[in-house]
């Protein structure tokens, strides 16, 4: 039984069957990649996992509980954190404030009317956020406006924000899309390090095979809204069905 | 109020507040307790003219302001003296009031109760105004009248036509020269009956706020008393700019008269729409269809243009009135400003002179003395003919004009013609009339602010 169990999920947009009969099981403490050509339904599937979309059929269980019908913030509080394709951070806030917000969310839950004490008096959150920044090697940038940072730093900050919540499952949506090779390698290293240092399950949607094969322990190939195969990276390489899906030609 | 309303307790407390902060050096002197609010101490006395200067009624407010300035000139002995020469009371000498030169301050009511009170307060608190005059709506008049009562100054209302101003909201410190909805109805009803017959069916469109309701109530009561039937009364939102959807059903309602209880822009548009729908060309119940606009003003007539032709209504005053006071006023106003005065201008002019005269006769600016001098005062020579300021409710009683849109006006100023001057006896009512707050309505106590 995996930490994330997707069963028979289907989703239609008007005339387009985006997902049909998707089954997926992500085992705890693994790195699981989902790959597939454009329009295979990767993003739709991801959105069904985090509460942005509700599937027409099927079930999505996280750690034995259904996530269906829950709002994104509730699913996050269950322990799923999401990293976006383009970094989603609080651009108008400073880097430190960016890091404090997930820490508050971790400590106080989805809503807390904490309107009178000053932020600086919240020592526990402050310390935690600083610790996380140090871990992400961004402590020196803490008073910068987040919007002013480079794209690579924004990605780092976003991943750091997700980790500060100590999620059990980290979802990454093409984390290296549009990155230069050097930045991509840095990101790979960062993710490897993260995986080494803590008990965490990572699910990653990726285009870049280099990234996928550097990180993943299991790979699911999605094509036309349905999983083609699921296997180890070694077996996926050279799998005829995969070639077919990617090259669009029958073997 | 503010400056002088130092109750002993208030004095002690405020004194303590000020004293706690700084030890008072001897040059700090608290003003000596005056006998009444804004008692004039120097060689001048300040009047406050509170008129709409922005918003839809700005032109009407401007007309009032012109008349008020003219009155101040006349009081100070400048110009040709205007109605001072025809006024039956000879107390005014053209040397200001009680020997003090008259100055004035102005404010903008914006035709909103809040803004009007703010500007009246500023004139009282900051400029030391001892009397407030002007305004072009009943909401503003009632609001400012209440303020003046609390503050201990005299309020001489401008254009306010609602029964409430001297009805349930009457105040000891407030006075109205303008006529009211009841008087309009009482004056109009016989003329309507004579011109249109006694078996008419009336359809009312009524502006959905206090003034509209009182006017509709008054007109309906007066016309029903002489045999008319009220088919329907439809309330229209004040903010309406287009009345087509209210006018369209009129013709099929079985009515043969349309009564527009609207004022200002509402009236201009509803009348324009009614003419567009061709109501006046129609025949209903075998009779020519008619329109009545109970309250007319010159500016509304100008705004409605040709549409007012043949439409009946009532006015407080019209410059074409042929009496000595009116002629003197029209000459004075016309020569200075190049146009005849409107009825709101006339009421403000008369109110300023009446206030000044009352001060002279009372020998004091003390509002309580002035009020006493105005109560029950009978006069003539200000343009409306013989007039009484009734003591019980501070309402002026005088003849009421029934007017009609002229068929062939020769210039921009004679678009209205006087149909009848309804004698004052016909528009009289008891001070405890149910439409005026009944027996419960009371002026309360005079407040001088002391």
């Amino acid at each position, binding site marked *: 039984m995996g930490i994330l169990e997707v069963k028979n999920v289907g989703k239609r947009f008007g005339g387009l069957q985006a997902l049909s009969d998707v089954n997926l099981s992500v085992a705890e403490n693994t790195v699981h990649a989902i790959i597939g050509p454009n329009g295979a339904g990767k993003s739709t599937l991801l959105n069904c996992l985090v509460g942005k979309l509700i599937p027409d059929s099927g079930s999505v269980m996280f750690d034995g509980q259904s996530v269906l019908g829950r709002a994104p913030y509730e699913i996050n509080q269950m322990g799923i954190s999401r990293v976006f394709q383009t970094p989603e951070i609080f651009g108008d806030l400073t880097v430190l404030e960016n890091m404090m917000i997930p820490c508050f969310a971790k400590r106080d839950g989805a809503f807390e009317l904490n309107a009178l004490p000053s932020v600086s008096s919240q020592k526990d959150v402050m310390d935690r956020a600083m610790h996380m920044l140090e871990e992400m090697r961004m402590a020196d940038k803490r008073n910068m406006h987040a919007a002013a940072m480079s794209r690579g730093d924004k990605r780092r900050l976003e991943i750091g924000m997700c980790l500060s919540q100590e999620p059990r499952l980290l979802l990454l949506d093409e984390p290296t899309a549009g990155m230069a090779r050097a930045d991509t390698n840095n990101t790979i290293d960062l993710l490897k390090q993260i995986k080494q240092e803590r008990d965490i399950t990572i699910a990653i949607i990726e285009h870049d095979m280099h990234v996928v094969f550097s990180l993943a322990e299991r790979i699911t190939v999605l094509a036309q809204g349905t999983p083609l195969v699921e296997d180890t990276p070694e077996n996926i390489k050279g799998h005829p069905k995969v070639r077919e899906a990617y090259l669009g030609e029958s073997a | 109020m503010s400056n002088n309303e130092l109750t002993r307790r208030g004095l002690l407390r405020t004194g303590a507040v000020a004293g706690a902060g700084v030890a008072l050096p001897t040059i700090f002197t608290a003003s000596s307790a005056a006998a009444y609010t804004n008692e004039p101490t120097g060689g001048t006395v300040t009047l406050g003219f509170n008129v709409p200067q922005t918003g839809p009624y700005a032109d009407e407010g401007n007309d009032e302001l012109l008349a008020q300035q003219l009155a101040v000139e006349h009081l100070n002995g400048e110009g040709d003296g205007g109605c001072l020469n025809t006024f039956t009371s000879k107390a005014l000498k053209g040397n200001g009031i009680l020997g003090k030169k008259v100055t004035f301050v102005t404010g903008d009511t914006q035709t909103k109760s809040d803004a009007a009170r703010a500007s009246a307060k500023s004139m009282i608190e900051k400029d030391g105004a001892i009397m407030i005059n002007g305004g072009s709506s009943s909401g503003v008049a009632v609001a400012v009248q209440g303020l003046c009562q609390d503050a201990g100054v005299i309020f001489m209302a401008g254009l306010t036509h609602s029964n409430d101003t001297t009805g349930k909201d009457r105040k000891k410190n407030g006075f109205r020269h303008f006529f009211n909805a009841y008087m309009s109805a009482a004056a109009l009803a016989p003329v309507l009956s004579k011109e249109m017959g006694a078996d008419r069916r009336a359809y009312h469109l009524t502006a959905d706020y206090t003034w509209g309701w009182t006017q509709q109530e008054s007109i309906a009561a007066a016309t029903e008393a002489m045999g008319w039937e009220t088919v329907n009364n439809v309330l229209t939102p004040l903010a309406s*700019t287009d009345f087509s959807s209210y006018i369209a059903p009129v013709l099929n309602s079985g009515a043969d008269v349309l009564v527009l209880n609207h004022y200002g822009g509402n009236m201009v548009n509803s009348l324009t729409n009614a003419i567009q729908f061709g109501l006046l060309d129609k025949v209903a119940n075998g009779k020519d269809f008619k329109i009545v606009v109970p309250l007319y003003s010159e500016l509304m007539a100008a705004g409605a243009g040709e549409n007012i032709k043949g439409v009946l209504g009532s006015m407080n005053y019209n410059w074409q009135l042929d009496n000595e006071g009116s002629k003197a006023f029209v000459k004075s106003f016309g020569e200075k400003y190049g146009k005849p005065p409107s009825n709101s201008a006339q009421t403000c002019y008369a109110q300023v002179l009446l206030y000044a005269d009352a001060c002279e006769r009372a020998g004091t600016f003390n509002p309580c003395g002035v009020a006493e001098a105005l109560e029950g005062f009978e006069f003539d020579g200000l343009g409306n003919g013989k007039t009484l300021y009734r003591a019980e409710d501070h309402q002026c009683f005088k003849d009421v004009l029934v007017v009609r849109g002229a068929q062939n006006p020769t210039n921009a100023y004679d678009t209205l013609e006087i149909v009848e001057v309804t004698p004052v006896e016909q528009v009289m009512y008891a001070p405890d009339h149910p439409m005026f707050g009944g027996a419960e309505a009371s002026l309360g106590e005079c407040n001088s602010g002391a």
Partner: protein
Amino acid sequence: MDAIILQILNGLDKGSAYALIALGLTLIFGTLGVVNFAHGALFMIGAFCAVTVQRLLNLSFQTVDETQKDFLGNPLKVDTPYVEAWFGPEVGATIIDWSVPLAVVFAIPIMLAVGYAMERGLIKHFYKRPHADQILVTFGLAIVLQEIIKYFFGANPIQTPEPSALKGSLDIGLMLGFDPNAIIYPIWRLVYFAFAAVIIGGVFAFLQFTTFGMVVRAGMADRETVGLLGINIDKRFTIMFGIAAGVAGLAGVMYGPLNPPNYHMGMDFLVLSFVVVVVGGMGSLPGAVAAGFLLGVLESFASTTWATTTIPGINQIIIYLVAIIILLTRPRGLMGRKGVMEE
């Protein structure tokens, strides 16, 4: 039945004015992303174009007529308009009589120029500024424009009557087989509706069938991409602003005979036209037109005696009530696209 037809006519007529103003407003939203609080003022300026034309045609010379007296008893000065002196009294009077339709011709270049000047002189600098700043600056502009009009024309409404040939009303009921007087409708209101239909149709045709229009529509959908294609979209947007101003202005010119123009008529329509645009959906042209007519018709029905006796005061709040219901059931109005003006 006749009452229903009558109120539908009324509604279409009210709706015409709403739709015309909202159309221009949503064009500006959609193309420039600007919240234009001065749009009502453009409508008002259009109406005052008609007033100006009427004043110009009535420019007169004075002759003293000793036989008549003015209100002070002096000899009366008689005004004779120049056009009557030049073309003879009858032709001259006819020209004056037709001043509103003439003003349409006069208003088109003026409104385009006003729109162009506004966009180049002011709005252009606010594309990148927050919506709040746009609101403040255009609101300031609206106040300034209306105060200027007030300074020259006063606060009182000014009649701009329709030509006498188009005065009066038609008995539509008779044509449809109802009793006489059942459905009486003013000719000019029918003219206004037809005029609005032509203008709306014209704008849509222009956007649909010309290359210029296609580029603008593409720009509305995705401004950046079209800009990347090397098309000078900015210049086209300036022209669109001029057109939007022109539509508002023409709506104003033709509105004069329905209800006499005054300096604050723009503010009276401002809030309403925003409600219309939003109910229609931000950036949607068909939405704005549909919402304009829908709200016009509903407003007319709400003012019937039947409606006001069933729910007292419904005529006061109907527009807002409908707006709330529509926005709560359809998150982006009738035809709005996702993500437009939602931040």
